[in-house]
């Protein structure tokens, strides 16, 4: 084994070591930045410094796809293999890159210069195809990450030289209550944010309102979580506020990794102060003294901009001790993920901040009483928090002028795929899918509409007949479509949906944490069967196998990942039975039997 000079590592660890295990991900990031990967002596030194057992260090490194125990190329190129990028030629770009570097996907070139990998959605679906690049310079022992959006086939030189390109996001819609400063190619400064009324909410809340008044206002606004679960935000805050014990924590969930989702990135890159203001108000409401802002590892630009916004806010007295003279102290820390979709699940995210493998916990107990470090915690999505300043500044009633009774306020949709203008659209809840698709996003491109994937990889397929469904929680539920994280991914009639399903099932097989059996085994088996569907080589009984695996994951998995990992497949089986060797009539009779065809499946089980 080559010798590694551990001196720079020891210096880097000096600040982190006193924190102990919670500093493990930051320490591993720092170490990898120094050495290009995490060789054994480096990993061992990190363990010693932080007091973490070596076997656990191994477990953590192995869990996160952006950490490497084996030497990686000085330039690591991660090419998105998920649907929106596939539609725009990601496969041929990956192939061209591999030919040029003379490697297979997943390998490192002989000269050690390049590692080329397939990766899961990079949150740049509106600017597909996308590549994420880590570049390491052995001479200076430094490394940096960049994103490369809208990769053209002739961009290979730039890719290999790690000259990145941002997303130049399109932000549109009928409203701009929360996106007014987004999509301008740079982050709004604190001053710009203040010019459009920013920081009024923090001032109002901390100076003029009690925590309970803040909670009541948010409850009255009808604001619910935008991370996928749609839980009422005010109720969550009240739970954390009333929970006994402390210290309490407030967590911003910016792990955005659901395929097709990029709204949180657009908010962080465009208007980071708004999100942090929402978190300050939330922290005040629950009585937290520390905010953790957890951003996925593949979002270098967002991370940088959030960090600068924090610096600005701190300098202006919005963070730190005795904020705005209110007597309220609040600290904030940015944490970087390292390549794991599951860390968006709230309890897995806590584990990750605690320096562990990102494995979801059994609930109950719930985060409001037993969250981060076992303490009362409120965790919210970036978009959820972006709406808080408006509610506090203008009042719940003003917020409720938009949307419906049950789906209040504005909503962001992530439109991608075969549309004229992919982007983030801010609209009031309640517009129709047709309005979003045709009037705002400019309609389907490349042929007639085949389908829309709603809600992401964990979503379901809509067709022509659903276009007049209104975009609200209640209407979508009635139509059997999940709102999820606001994904609207459009496919024209020329697209092979079997290929798209294979990508979605690969996504789940890659991202299952492996904790519980139904998902650990089921995501693998589901992918294998869909591989056969894709090749047109289904085995007798595959359709029943898919249904059994699908419902078993849905019913018996420990967390939301496994519980929704079959959602798109089960939906596709209803929409395109012919792809699975079934006639449409068979499926109709199944549907009419009620809940998800469970009865039929149960009968089939008695082989």
């Amino acid at each position: 084994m080559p010798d590694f000079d551990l001196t720079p590592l020891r210096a880097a660890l000096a600040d982190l070591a006193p924190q102990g295990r919670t500093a493990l991900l930051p320490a591993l990031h720092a170490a990898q930045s120094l050495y290009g990967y995490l060789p054994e002596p480096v990993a061992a030194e990190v363990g010693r410094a932080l007091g973490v057992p070596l076997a656990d260090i191994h477990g953590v490194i192995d869990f996160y796809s952006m950490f490497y125990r084996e030497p990686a190329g000085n330039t690591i190129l991660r090419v998105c293999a998920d649907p929106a990028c596939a539609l725009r030629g990601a496969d041929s770009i990956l192939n061209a890159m591999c030919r040029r570097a003379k490697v297979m996907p997943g390998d490192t070139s002989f000269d050690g210069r390049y590692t080329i990998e397939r990766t899961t959605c990079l949150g740049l679906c509106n600017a597909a195809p996308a590549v994420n690049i880590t570049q390491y310079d052995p001479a200076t022992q430094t490394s940096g990450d960049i994103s490369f959006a809208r990769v053209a086939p002739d961009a290979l030189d730039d890719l290999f030289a790690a000259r990145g390109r941002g997303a130049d996001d399109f932000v549109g819609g009928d409203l701009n209550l929360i996106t007014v400063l987004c999509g301008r190619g740079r982050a709004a400064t604190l001053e710009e944010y203040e010019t459009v009324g920013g920081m009024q909410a923090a001032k109002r809340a901390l100076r003029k309102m009690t925590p309970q008044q803040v909670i009541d206002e948010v409850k009255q606004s009808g604001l619910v979580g935008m991370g996928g679960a749609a839980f009422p935000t005010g109720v969550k805050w009240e739970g954390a506020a009333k929970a006994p014990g402390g210290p309490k924590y407030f967590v911003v969930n910016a792990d955005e990794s659901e395929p097709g989702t990029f709204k949180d990135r657009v908010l962080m890159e465009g208007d980071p102060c708004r999100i942090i203001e929402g978190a300050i108000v939330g922290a005040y409401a629950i009585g937290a003294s520390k905010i953790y802002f957890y951003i996925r590892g593949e979002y270098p630009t967002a991370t940088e901009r959030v960090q600068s916004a924090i610096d600005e806010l701190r300098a202006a007295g919005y963070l730190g001790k005795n904020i705005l003279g209110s007597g309220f102290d609040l600290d904030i820390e940015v944490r970087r993920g390292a390549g794991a979709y599951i860390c968006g699940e709230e309890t897995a995210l806590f584990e990750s901040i605690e320096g562990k493998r990102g494995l979801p916990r059994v609930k109950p107990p719930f985060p409001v009483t037993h969250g981060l470090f076992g303490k009362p915690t409120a965790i919210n999505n970036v978009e959820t928090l972006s709406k808080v300043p408006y509610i506090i500044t203008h009042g719940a009633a003003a917020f409720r002028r938009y949307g419906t009774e049950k789906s209040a306020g504005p909503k962001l949709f992530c439109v991608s795929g075969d549309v004229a203008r992919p982007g983030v659209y801010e609209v009031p809840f309640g517009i129709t899918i047709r309005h979003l698709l045709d009037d705002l996003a400019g309609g389907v491109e490349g042929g007639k509409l085949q389908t829309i994937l709603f809600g992401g990889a964990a979503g379901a397929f809509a067709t022509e007949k659903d276009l007049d469904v209104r975009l609200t929680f209640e209407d979508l539920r009635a139509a059997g479509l999940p709102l999820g994280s606001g994904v609207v991914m459009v496919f024209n009639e020329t697209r092979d949906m079997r290929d798209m399903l294979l990508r979605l099932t690969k996504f789940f097989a890659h991202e299952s944490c492996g904790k519980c059996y139904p998902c650990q085994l089921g995501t693998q088996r589901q992918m294998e069967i869909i591989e056969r569907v894709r090749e047109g080589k289904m085995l007798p009984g595959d359709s029943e196998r898919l249904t059994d695996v699908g419902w078993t994951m849905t019913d018996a998995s420990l967390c939301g990942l496994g519980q929704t990992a079959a959602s798109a497949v089960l939906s596709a089986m209803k929409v395109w039975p012919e792809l699975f060797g079934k006639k449409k009539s068979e499926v109709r009779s199944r549907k009419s039997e009620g809940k998800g065809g469970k009865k039929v499946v149960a009968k089939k089980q008695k082989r």
Partner: protein
Amino acid sequence: MADVTLTIDGKAVSVPAGTTILKAAQGIGEHVPTICFHEHCTANALCRVCVVEVEGARVLSPACVAQVSEGMKVQTRSERVQRSRRTILEMLDSAVDLSEAESIQPMLKEYAADGERFADGARRDHPLLDDNPMYIRDYAKCVLCWRCVQVCADDAQYTYAINFGKRGFETSIATFFDKPMPATTCVFCGQCVGVCPTGALKPKREWLLQEGATPDEIMQATRAERRRKRKA
């Protein structure tokens, strides 16, 4: 603690608050299968073969950790429950060598799990690891119940010699950089071997006997290795 009344498969039962559905069911003689659950280990609810249907719940509940509540209606053998249990067992059987898993074999029969149903799927075929004089590690038989990792850590020994490798289907039990056991913090207390339900961890002697070694050969093998370890 106050008693809670619920029904399990239609039978009314009263148990102290905080009791798990598993214990409540056992109390009235209802059998709920379990794989990962162990009386002396922290329950992590990972195998999910203990799932039951609780009226009004969106998904099935793991009986080993889910606590009873007043008026709860539990079904331990509904169609949904049976399908999940059977499919989990079929998938497990197709990925792992369950031939020596004495507690799981009867479940495969009871749920009529078809071992061939996913026969063409990937298996977790790990090579057998024979790197110390005390026990062998045959991870092709590992069901990832976590017990060994837990007894090695906070559930008993506080030794932390083993943890996990990779994730998802490819998860495995691993040491730091896959080092052999003598090069880890392992103190050969044998607790991991004691809690392993599948024969993946097995005393070296037992394994050598199975392999047809003579008592003399066994003495030799373990003694030689012990000496080697002492020197190291």
